[in-house]
């Protein structure tokens, strides 16, 4: 009778896999080249940059917070890299610096949110503008394209007979790291605890402020890494880099099953949601569906992702009212939260 915590999530991940296969099948009817190995691996490049952001954002959202400034941090990173490249600084030096700058930008968000208890949506909306402005100040309106070849490697090279993008390997490594962090370490457990009940976690000796600042710093560092990938993929750095990509990122996190109120979700769900969104976007591209329509689809998926827990609860009520009653306060709890 006692409800178990772990029983809900594999179901959602399974649904995501089915959806990915469905979207893939649809895409394959649109182009004879869709199912080629090159195409499949190559298409993953489309979501690696938002994917890195989504991994960091998933940690922040698990705390019940949000960070919409991440795309602007990418721009700060790319223009900084352009300055380093122009000055002839080797990537081995500039890459760690850019990741650190990203972490610093993130930590500043975290400081405002955690230390001074400001609402994270407002804070990161503000820093979204501020970091974007900073990127324009560091760089300029004109894009920089004269990158040293070493700067391009990470985002543009393929390995294993030119099939697997290097950036995909980087993303996979980061995904495993963040998964391990969130699902196997003390830090991850504390994040979910804070997301479920900040006060009780604080009473239990969790340093809420520190945990939150670290989450924001991690998200910022991953945005710094994404900036390096960006340079390789696009070969260009400008103040408006990655502008507008945050919708995709938030959608991936929410659709991946991270509760927007914090406390629940899995990193594997987020990765699957990224694949799903990538496949859908790729398919829409093949079907010649215009950008505005794609944005509408993406936005709708975000809303659907937010609605999902409530809809699932309503469905459970409709299909089996007796069982819900037996679950008692648990049922009430989750519907109240969501």
């Amino acid at each position, binding site marked *: 009778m*006692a409800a178990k*915590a772990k029983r809900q999530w594999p179901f959602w991940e399974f649904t995501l896999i089915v959806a990915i296969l469905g979207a893939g099948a649809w895409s394959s009817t649109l182009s004879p080249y869709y199912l080629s190995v090159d195409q499949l691996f190559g298409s993953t490049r489309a979501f690696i940059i938002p994917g890195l952001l989504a991994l960091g954002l998933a940690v922040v959202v698990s705390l019940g917070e949000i960070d919409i400034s991440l795309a602007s941090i990418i721009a700060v990173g790319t223009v900084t890299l352009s300055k380093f490249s122009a000055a002839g600084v080797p990537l081995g030096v500039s890459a760690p610096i850019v990741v650190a700058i990203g972490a610093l930008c993130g930590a500043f968000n975290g400081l405002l949110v955690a230390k001074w208890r400001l609402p994270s949506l407002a804070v990161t909306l503000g820093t979204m503008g501020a970091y974007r402005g900073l990127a324009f100040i560091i760089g300029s309106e004109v894009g920089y394209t004269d990158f040293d070849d070493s700067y391009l490697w990470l985002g543009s090279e393929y390995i294993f007979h030119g099939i697997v993008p290097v950036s995909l390997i980087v993303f996979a490594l980061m995904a495993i790291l963040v998964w391990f962090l969130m699902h196997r370490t003390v830090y991850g457990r504390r994040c979910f605890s804070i997301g479920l*009940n900040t006060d009780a976690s604080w009473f239990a*000796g969790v340093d809420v402020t520190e945990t939150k600042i670290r989450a924001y710093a991690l998200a910022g560092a991953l945005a710094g890494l994404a900036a390096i990938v960006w340079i390789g993929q696009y070969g260009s750095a400008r103040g408006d880099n990655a502008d507008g990509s945050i919708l995709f990122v938030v959608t991936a996190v929410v659709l991946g099953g991270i509760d927007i109120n914090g406390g629940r979700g899995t990193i594997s769900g987020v990765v699957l949601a990224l694949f799903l969104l990538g496949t859908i976007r790729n398919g829409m591209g093949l079907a010649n569906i215009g950008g505005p329509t794609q944005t509408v689809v993406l936005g709708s998926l975000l809303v659907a992702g937010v609605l999902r827990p409530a809809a699932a609860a309503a469905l459970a009520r409709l299909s089996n009212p007796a069982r819900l009653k037996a679950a008692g306060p648990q049922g009430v709890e989750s519907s109240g939260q969501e």
Partner: protein
Amino acid sequence: MSAIESGQPIREPIMALKGIGKSFGPVKALEDVGFDVYPGCVHGLVGENGAGKSTLVKIITGLEQADEGEVILAGKSVAFRTPIEARSHGVAAVYQDPKLFPHLSVAENIAMGAYPAGWLGGLDRRRMIETARHHLARLGSDLDPRRTVAGLSVAEHQFVEIARALSADVRVLILDEPTSALTPTEAERLFAVMRALRDRGTAVIFITHRLEEIEALSDTITVLRDRRHVATLPRAEVDRAKLVQLMVGRPLETLFTRRDRPSFGAEVLRVEHLSLEGVFADVSFSVRAGEIVGMGGLVGAGRTEIAQTLFGITPPTSGDFYLKGEKVAPNSPRQMLGKGLAYLPEDRDRDGLIMPETITHNITLPILKTLSRWAVIDRAGERRVAAKASETYNVRTPSVEAIVSSLSGGNRQKVAFAKWLATEPVALILDEPTHGIDIGSKAQVHAMVSQLADRGLAVVLISSDLPELIAMSDRILVIAEGALVAEFAHDEATQEKVMLAAARQSGRRRG
């Protein structure tokens, strides 16, 4: 029937309560409560915390519906469904924390629900302000009706709330702890208003913890205890001692009496002149190993605040705190847990546990560091610890992977105990550990607390349950209005003494 002392003629009661009963699920909130309220009379309503006073007020004003019995207003049976309906029949209540709309003006708040209509059905602003001014003047207040409520003092809030109650033609006015946030001068003004209303023929039901106020103002006094009606007596027939005895005179039957006098060890916890500005001041006490020190007092006296200050939640503004002889400056629960102090919060479901999480995750949250290697949680070890702890503290559950919110209140409390004790503290502060749990679990909690003390823990027990406090404690400290006002040894403590000390009104310190 004899005429009331003041020589007023015999009248029909304006309101009669007959056999009122109310349950919330399996919990009885009121059983068979009945008494009459007469016009032109201040009717004092007293009882311990949880005696059922607030529930009764909610039933009378339509916030809750009675399961049994009836409310008779001026000879007719009524069952109000909303406070607005009650108000239209001349029954209004003022609560201890006024529920006003902070961003609206005083006049708008007073008129709330009955805005005067003007030309074309619009709002007649001038009439609304005039009416508000008139009602405030009746209370002897010259508050500007155009002011926004947000900037008012608590006393002014109270007056606005009363003026609002008076804006309808009120026949029965209920004041629930109206003076708890007032200064003595403000309280005096309120009393003058109450007397004026009474002289005009309004029935005033007056609820307060301050017995001297009851004695000074009431014409009739009703005592509730354990959700039942104990007595309704004219003021002349009761004195303070009798009142207290009526309020607390409950048998000790269900209580676990503490072990034989044990020998105490060394001093574990010492507090010297601890103050938190505006909340409590100059609190000093000490607890030795194996000793249970009870902390009694009224709700809002500052006990929880003292405990939370010691646990680092709200650092003190002055004073010293020693734990095992070492001076500590509490500034976070993490730090205090590290020093060996654990605190079981009063609001278990909000602060004590993470309700949607498993038993395991709840129990191990404070000790994750010790259950991990290089920050990686040893999940099998974690489950072992949780399983052992739930067995030790007798948590009834099919599995430690069960969600805490699916457990009963008593079992949740045992999980909370298991969680805090897993930190292996040297001192433990328990804040209302048996609040809201069933009798069986209550006895288990009592046994558990005794065992913990026997094992050498220094225990501070905050409880509003007087029989429990007296039975469990080796020593009892009484807190009133943020000050330590009395201390009793186990042998000399009686419910009456503790109650008297707790209910004293000093008017010395006010927020």
